[in-house]
């Protein structure tokens, strides 16, 4: 392409001084040759000047930038919303966005887990069990360390330090000896693995130093195993032991009183005293009692030997309780409390400080004194217990268990069925007399009108047979039971001398209406006939003839033209067979089933017992039922398709229920994201 063809471009670039040297030379060479282009060049030059002149006037003034800035500041005032802005700025970073989405998903999963109650609890329990294992390991180690170190440094000891200041000072003293390698004892209040290791390493050195001093302090729970070793090493410790001895003896003796006298004599010999005696007379005139005796511990064994000779030894136990530790603990605590008391008194004496502080001190002093008294009491009690051994002797006279008399107790119960419950109930109540006492009478009528009554009667021994006979005559008796019991009084077992007495007879009666009585026999059958209505009437007559009663009757006709009459009736058993015979005259008897309930216990008046019959008299209906045929089929098809549509709707509902939470969560996330983005833009 030549310069001439592109002269406009070249001219413009030349004016704007944007041509390379080579290009400019080429252009100038061309301008020399070409008159037309030269003219254009001239014109362009003039126009350039005009343009420069014209457009310079249009140039923005020097304050333009300031105006722009001011306008910008006016329309975008600096926000001071710190955190919101920070979050918005953060949300712009891709990393933050990803983290936020991840956190949201995680939170959703966690919420789901929480709602379903799955997962979280499992991992928790696993953690706990792990923790437990660790604890057990700790404990094992502690046990290993404890005996070796003695009382001074084992882990249980460390935990005790807090509530026993004197022991604490002792413990820290003993650790002070080893301070270069161990560090302060107070640092080791928590049991740490490193500490345990150190303790093991140190135990060999510590043991000889601490042992002589640790007699008092080592009496903690873990120290029991090494008690024996310690006492053999230190015989003097035995003398200081505080032991409470007590014994229990059970003896069978001929006579309670003589034995007690003998025991008293023995006690005086052994420089003791009888603390308490108690005795109790049984129904058969024998005595049983207890004697509590205090003797000096040294004489205890001799005393027991003597007492054993007084009768037949049934049971003996001898116990020793070591209260040394408790005693010295209390003792040292008492000392501390005394020091504390003195200090508080000093504070009160100087009387500096605020009144409220002094009051506080006063209060504290009261508390400390109370504590001191308690501890003193405890020490005194322990002293007393140690000073004397307690022997508890239980004495029983021979043949204590023999009964004094026998009582013949008779209990009768019967169920009465009568047409009128209330009348019978009142009749029985009228029988009451001094020798026939009604202890409980109750008449119930429930919400469906059933009536029943319950009576309990106590009858003097002689009267019972006659009265029961009279009651039985009042209705149909069912389930009559008599129970006789021989009760030994004042002991168990047999006795040749004991007399037998008849007690009052207890009679329980329940009265119900006859209809409520459960049938002795239940039968059901169907009779097919063409004239249901007529046959039902006939059946009614038959029932009347056989002394029976119709209990319910219902009649129905179904769409197919079949008629049903359901009759339920009750007849006495003796007429049952006759009625069944006569039923054949009504039509074809079908589906006969008979059920008889065996009643256990009690006699049954079989001839009068009721028998229930439920009879269905029916006719056959139309030949073609309403359930077949064209319309029925159509109807059925329609119903089925409607059901299918309903089923699919339900399935859609289920699917929606499954998806909805996720869709909601997703929409929420998108919405929040959009809101954040929009907030960022503003």
């Amino acid at each position: 392409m030549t310069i001439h063809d592109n002269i406009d471009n070249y001219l413009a670039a030349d004016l704007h001084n944007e041509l390379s040297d080579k290009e400019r030379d080429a252009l100038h060479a061309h301008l020399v040759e070409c008159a037309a282009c030269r003219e254009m060049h001239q014109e362009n030059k003039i126009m350039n000047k005009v343009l420069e002149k014209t457009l310079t006037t249009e140039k923005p003034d020097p304050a333009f930038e300031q105006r722009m800035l001011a306008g910008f500041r006016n329309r975008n005032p600096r926000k001071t919303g710190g955190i919101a802005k920070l979050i918005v700025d953060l949300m712009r970073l891709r990393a933050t966005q990803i983290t936020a989405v991840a956190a949201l998903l995680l939170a959703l999963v966690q919420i789901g887990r929480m709602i379903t109650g799955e997962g979280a609890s499992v991992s928790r329990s696993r953690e706990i069990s792990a923790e437990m294992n660790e604890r057990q390991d700790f404990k094992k180690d502690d046990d290993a360390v404890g005996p070796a170190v003695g009382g001074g440094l084992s882990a249980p000891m460390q935990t005790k330090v807090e509530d026993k200041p004197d022991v604490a000072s002792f413990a820290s003293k003993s650790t002070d000896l080893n301070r270069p390698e161990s560090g302060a004892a107070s640092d080791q209040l928590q049991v740490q693995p490193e500490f345990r290791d150190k303790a093991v390493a140190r135990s060999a050195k510590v043991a000889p130093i601490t042992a002589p001093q640790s007699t008092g302090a080592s009496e903690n729970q873990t120290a029991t195993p090494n008690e024996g070793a310690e006492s053999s090493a230190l015989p003097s410790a035995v003398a200081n032991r505080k032991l409470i001895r007590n014994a229990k003896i059970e003896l069978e003796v001929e006579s309670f009183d003589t034995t007690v006298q003998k025991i008293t004599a023995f006690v005086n010999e052994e420089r003791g005293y009888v603390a308490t005696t108690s005795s109790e007379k049984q129904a058969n005139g024998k005595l049983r009692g207890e004697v509590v005796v205090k003797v000096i511990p040294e004489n205890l064994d001799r005393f027991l030997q003597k007492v054993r000779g007084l009768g037949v030894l049934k049971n003996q136990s001898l116990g020793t309780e070591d209260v040394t530790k408790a005693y010295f603990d209390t003792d040292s605590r008492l000392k501390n409390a005394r020091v504390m008391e003195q200090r508080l008194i000093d504070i009160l004496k100087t009387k500096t400080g605020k009144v409220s502080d002094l009051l506080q001190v006063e209060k504290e002093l009261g508390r400390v004194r109370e504590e001191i008294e308690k501890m003193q009491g405890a020490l005194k009690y322990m002293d007393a217990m140690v000073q004397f051994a307690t022997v508890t002797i239980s004495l029983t006279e021979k043949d204590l268990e023999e009964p004094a008399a026998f009582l013949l107790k008779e209990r009768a119960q019967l169920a009465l069925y009568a047409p009128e419950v209330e009348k019978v109930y009142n009749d029985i109540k009228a029988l009451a007399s001094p020798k026939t006492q009604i202890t409980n009478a109750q008449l119930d009528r429930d919400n469906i009108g059933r009536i029943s009554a319950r009576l309990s009667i106590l009858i003097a021994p002689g009267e019972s047979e006659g009265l029961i006979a009279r009651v039985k005559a009042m209705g149909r008796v069912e389930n009559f039971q008599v129970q006789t019991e021989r009760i030994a009084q004042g002991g168990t077992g047999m006795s040749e001398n004991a007399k037998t007495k008849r007690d009052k007879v207890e009679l329980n009666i329940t009265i119900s209406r006859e209809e409520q009585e459960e049938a002795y026999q239940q039968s059901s059958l169907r009779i097919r006939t063409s004239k249901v209505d007529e046959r039902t009437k006939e059946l009614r007559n038959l029932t009347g003839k056989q002394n029976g009663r119709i209990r319910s009757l219902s009649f129905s006709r179904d769409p197919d033209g079949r008629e049903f009459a359901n009759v339920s009736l009750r007849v006495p058993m003796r007429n049952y067979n006759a009625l069944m015979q006569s039923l054949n005259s009504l039509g074809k008897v079908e589906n006969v089933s008979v059920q008889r309930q065996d009643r256990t216990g009690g006699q049954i008046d079989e001839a009068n017992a009721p028998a229930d019959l439920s009879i269905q008299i029916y006719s056959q209906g139309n030949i073609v039922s309403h359930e077949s045929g064209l319309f029925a089929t159509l109807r059925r098809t329609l119903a089925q398709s409607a059901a299918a549509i309903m089923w699919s709707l339900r399935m859609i509902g289920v699917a929606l229920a499954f998806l909805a939470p996720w869709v909601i969560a997703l929409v929420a996330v998108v919405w929040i994201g959009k809101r954040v983005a929009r907030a960022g833009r503003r």
Partner: protein
Amino acid sequence: MDFNEHELYRAAIHGDRDAFEMIIRTHSRRLFAITYGILQNREEAEDAVQDALVKAWKSRWRVRDPKKFPAWLTMIARHRARDVYRKRRLVPFSDDMTKPLEQESPTNTGTESLDRHVHSALAALPEIYRSALMLRYFEEMDYRTIENILGLSNGALRGILGRALASMRKQLRPALASLEQS
């Protein structure tokens, strides 16, 4: 691109107001050149620049690459100016305003009529031509910068400026002739 400038754009994108104000100081004139090129009216052009700046600040987070920040700023200004231009054309009385001007023109003195001629010649040019011209004549930018701002190649810019001048020359020839005579 200068490293400092790059940092400045990045800071502005991340919400540093001071950085953005710095950019306003350095870039608003060329934005004005572009809007003026489209609108041919100082007040409207200034408003358009103002709007464009505010809009840019609000949607600054949309720019992922700081390098593209100036081009993006230019684009916003251009769109804004076009919007204004379109609205103006919808308002009918602007036509009425131009007509009396043309009728009055012969009575005007030389320079004023020349100005008017220049303006009408400019108005006849395509928008990109005018923007290039303005950047050249207002800001006296070299071609490289103009290319950067408008996103053109060197050849394209030369062609544009060449055709722009040629077209104006043709339109202004009578006026220029009278000017030479006078």
